[in-house]
C-alpha cells in the first residue's frame, strides 16, 4: 500500500461557494446546485499545489487534504 493524499469535502461546512471547482476543475465539478463533486479523491502529484491552494482559499474551510492509504488489491 502506498500513502496517497486524498481530498475530502466536509458537507456540513460546505456552502457551495464554488472556488474549489474554479481552481481544480480536473478534480472537482459542481452539481446542479453549485456543490462540489469530487470524482476521485486521490490527488495526483501534479495537482498537489493546486489542491493545497483550494484548501487554503475555501471560504468555509470545508476542504481537507488528508493522508490516505490506497487499499491493497
Amino acid at each position: 500500500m502506498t500513502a496517497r493524499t486524498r481530498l475530502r469535502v466536509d458537507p456540513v461546512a460546505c456552502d457551495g461557494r464554488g472556488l474549489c471547482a474554479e481552481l481544480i476543475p480536473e478534480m472537482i465539478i459542481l452539481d446542479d446546485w453549485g456543490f462540489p463533486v469530487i470524482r476521485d479523491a486521490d490527488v495526483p502529484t501534479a495537482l498537489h499545489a493546486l489542491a493545497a491552494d483550494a484548501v487554503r482559499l475555501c471560504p468555509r474551510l470545508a476542504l481537507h487534504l488528508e493522508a490516505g492509504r490506497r487499499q491493497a488489491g
Partner: protein
Amino acid sequence: MMTGSAAVPTEPGRQAGLLPRLLPGRIPAEPAGLREHLARHGAPPRCGPDPGGRRQLLAEVERSGLTGRGGAAFPAARKLAAVAAAGHTPVVIANGSEGEPASAKDKVLLAREPHLVLDGAVAAAEIVGAREAVVVVHPAVLAKVAHAAAERRRSRLDRARLRVMAAADGFVAGEATAVVRWVQRGIPTPTPTPPRVSERGLRGHPTLVQNVETLAHLALIARYGAAWFRQIGTNAEPGTMLVTVTGAVRHPGVFEIGIGTPVRDVLGLAGGPSVPLQALLLGGYSGSWADAAAAGPLPFSAEGLAPLGAGPGAGLIAALPGGACRLAETARLAAYLAAESAGQCGPCVFGLAAIAGELAALAHGRPSNLDRLARWLAQADGRGACHHPDGAVRMIRSALAVFSGEAELHATGWCSATSSEAVLTAPRRGAG
C-alpha cells in the same frame, strides 16, 4: 394493535419453545415489574470490572452473531470491541429514538419489557467499561422506562448509572451522531464522521450507540448463551427480530419472528392482507419497494431479500393495497424525507427537495423529466454527512424500477389506481 407472537402452525424455525423471546406471549396491561422480570429471566449475570469476565461475555456475543437491530445490522461484538478498546471512560447510549414513523417495535419493546432493555444497556456498559448508560426513548414510553430505572436504582441492582431521557422528534434524530448531539446539547442533527462516535462521541468520550432491541437480545445472550441464541434464525443472521407490519393487513402490529421467516408468513402473523396487495415497502420509509407476489415466498432477512435489492432494514413491512397509486405513495414519502433533512448539507437539502418535486409532478400527471430525476438521484446519493439522502435515493430508485410500468402510464397522463386514499402516512413537522 396486536403484539406478541400469535399461535401459528409449527414451521421450520418456529418450533414451540423458541418463541417468544423478547415480547411476552400474553399482552399484559402493565410492563413487567422488576420482580416479575427477575422471576421470568433470572438474575442478570454480572461480569463486573474483571477484564477476564468482560472478555468472556464479549466472546459470547461474538459467537452469537448478534447484529444491530436499528437498521444497519452492524455486528454488535465488533462495535462493543471498538468502544472497549478506545479507552478513556466510554459511555453507552441505548437508542430508542425510532425516528422511522411507521415503525413501532422499539416503543412496544420498551413499553412491555423495559427491564430487558435496561439489562442489556447495563451489560453493554460492563463490557466496554462504561459507568453510565443513557437510555433515549420516545416520550410516549418515557414514564414506564423511567419507572423501571427507578425500581432498579432502589434495589441497587446495577453498578452502572442509568439515565433515561426523551428522544427528539424527527426522522434523522435516531442517527447515531444525532443522538449523541441530542443528549449532549439538545440538537438532534447528525455530525460529520470522522470522527466516529465509537472514537469520540458524547462529551468527547468513546460512545456505544446501540438500538434498544439489540440490547434486549444482548441481555438474553448474557443469560442463555450464544448457542441458545442461534437455535432460531439463519446461520448468517441468527436470532429473532421484531417487525412492524403495517398498511393493508388485517391486524397491523409488532411481531417477533425468527430471521428468515418467509415474508408471507410474517404478513400472516398480522392476519394476512386485508385486500389483494400490489407491493411491499421493506425496511422503512428509506428502504426498498418490492413486488408483493415476488417478495412473498422470500425469507425476511438480508440474504433472502437481496435478490430484490431490498433488506429487512429496521424491521418494517408496509403493505400497499392493489387500488392505491404507487407513485403518489412514493411521492408522499419522498416529500416527507426531503422535509426531514437536517438542512446541513446542500446536496441533501436541494437535491431531495427537487427530487420530491419531480416525483410529485410525475404522480399527479404534470410534465416531468425522468432523465433529470435520475441525474438528481445520482447527485444526492452519498453526498451528505449522514446516510439520509442515500436512503431516500434507494427508496425512490426501487420505486422507479418496480413501478416502471406505472411511471410510463403516468407519463401519458393516466393512472391505474382505483382509490385516492393515502395508505402510508407521514407525520407533518409540528411547530416548535
